[in-house]
């Protein structure tokens, strides 16, 4: 089973994502930027769903993304955001190597589609 890291400080969002994906993929969770990095190293997920606005010191979504990409340039990271695809921060994330972004609110089916597109 393919492994997905869900990195979001909101339990609500992690629950929503898990509800959509559980059973199809193995889910690993992280509730802060720092722990996202730890979990990424430990679990080596096939795909990371990363919240853009995650407060923990400097480890915002963009910082986490950059450090993941530095660690593994082939990593597949999809940003989760309520900011909208044209937001400057989201654009910055895409430039830094994120493979795409899912805009909140989203339907479970939409999320499954996006994930399937990357993991087959």
């Amino acid at each position, binding site marked *: 089973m393919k492994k997905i890291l869900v990195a979001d*400080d*909101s*339990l*609500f*969002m992690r*629950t*929503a994502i898990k*509800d959509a994906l559980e059973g199809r993929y193995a889910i690993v969770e992280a*509730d*802060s930027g720092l*722990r996202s990095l730890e979990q990424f190293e430990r679990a080596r997920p096939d795909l990371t769903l990363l919240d853009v*606005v995650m*407060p*923990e*010191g*400097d480890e*915002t979504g963009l910082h986490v993304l950059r450090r993941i990409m530095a660690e593994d340039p082939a990593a597949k990271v999809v940003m989760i955001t*309520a900011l909208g695809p044209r937001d400057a921060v989201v654009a910055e994330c895409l430039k830094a190597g994120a493979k795409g972004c899912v805009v*909140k*609110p*989203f339907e479970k089916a939409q999320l499954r589609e996006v994930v399937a597109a990357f993991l087959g």
Partner: protein
Amino acid sequence: MSESQKEAFLGEAWAGLETMNAALVELEGAPQRSEPLNRIFRAAHTLKGMAGMMKYDRTASLARALEDALDGLRQGAYPLAGRADLLFRCFDALAESLRAVERDDPEPDAAPLIHDLRLLAEGAPGPSVALPAAGGPAVSARSETLPVKVERLDLLMNLAEELFVVKMRFDQLGRASRDPELSASVDALDRLVSELQYQVTQARMLPVKFIFNRFPRLVRDLAKQQKKDVVFKQEHGDIELDRAASDEISESLLHLLRNAVDHGIETPEERARGGKPPQGTIRVAAMRTKEAAVIEVADDGAGVDVEGIRRAAARRGYPAPEKPDDEFLSLLAPGVSTTQEPTAISGRGLGLDIVKRNMQALGGSLSVATRPGKGATFRMEFPLTLAVVKTLLVEVGGRVYAVPMTGIERIASVREADVKRVLSAEAFVAGEQEIPLLRLRALFDLPETADSPFPVVVIGRGDRRLGLAVDALVAAQEIVLKPLSRVLRESRHFAGSAIIGTGDPILVLDVGALLLEEEAALR
């Protein structure tokens, strides 16, 4: 939507609303600061996103309109002055929506409010001075946490308590059988149950700031209603409280803060006449001493109206207090209030009585310091942990009562012939000291026995001593203290109740109250 998702939604949404309320009060006091505004904005943004995911469309629309209005504020499209009420109303409407979600009712219609928020957001072109832009990334020290239903924690606590009761039964069996193997097992069980109880108690700890956060809004609204200008300050000192105490603390704070706004802080005009700054300050602070938690509510208002209390006490037939210490005893007596015509807000001055009873239920105390014209400080002090108390079980009239070990000085055996009688009071001599004697049989209206000598438990605090005459000493035992039910709180003599090894409920004597009563009787 799964039930767990709804639970997670409600948990985060309520926390977000509390953040918004507290931050907007802060912003009202310091409109030039961008940090509280950013906090409100983030919370509104998150709420919008979550409500959208849950398909609570009306809630999402309202949160979205709020977000836009806040963005306008952030861009300097309008000043906060005069508009804060609309934002507060919006928070209230969001709370209404969450309550509807909790009950599975349809969400209320917020269209008019959304309309108002739109007008605000699109309001007249703002002043040229824009608010500072959002600062750097927010810093928050989140730990790996997960919301747990309070009922579930209570259930765990109850199970741990029941286990403790069963353990006490094993203790008794172990002692009775004198079987070394059984004793060793009971000892092991003892350690495990103690550890379990400690951990469950820790899991129920609640940061005091969660309690404090409920009040900035209340103080603001009350002050506004009474045309008073009040700044509310809080120092939570990272103190955590047992959740079992949080209801009592919340209720007490509510009364103390209402009193502070209502009776403490004067109107700006009165303050100006007294040579004070027009804005009053109310401060709540949580601290800890070695074994107790302390919460203080201090205001820089008029102080407690001691003369008014004397008159109020006299009107209701309380003895006119003569000594300064007594002023506060009567201040705290039920039914005495300084308000001539009670306002809708402070009720009839029963507030302090409730605070005092709440403190008693927690095994704590309430004290007051006041300076006329300068302000008053109300201090609540209570044990940090409420769970297990070492007690001595005593028997009176065929019933078992518990006396907390911390209040016991020594045990004596007194012969009837050694009891001195002075007027209606009794005393006995132990060592160099003459110690007043209180027969619990008399206290509980039971007939006296002719037993002599009889056991006496000497309780003390400070330099006060009191001997409690009982029928028999039963055993030293740890008990799990529970607050008294409302009915029993009416009784002055008990601090709580507990279930002991035999499964019987027992009452725990209130050492502090008995000592106070004895002292009052001596006057």
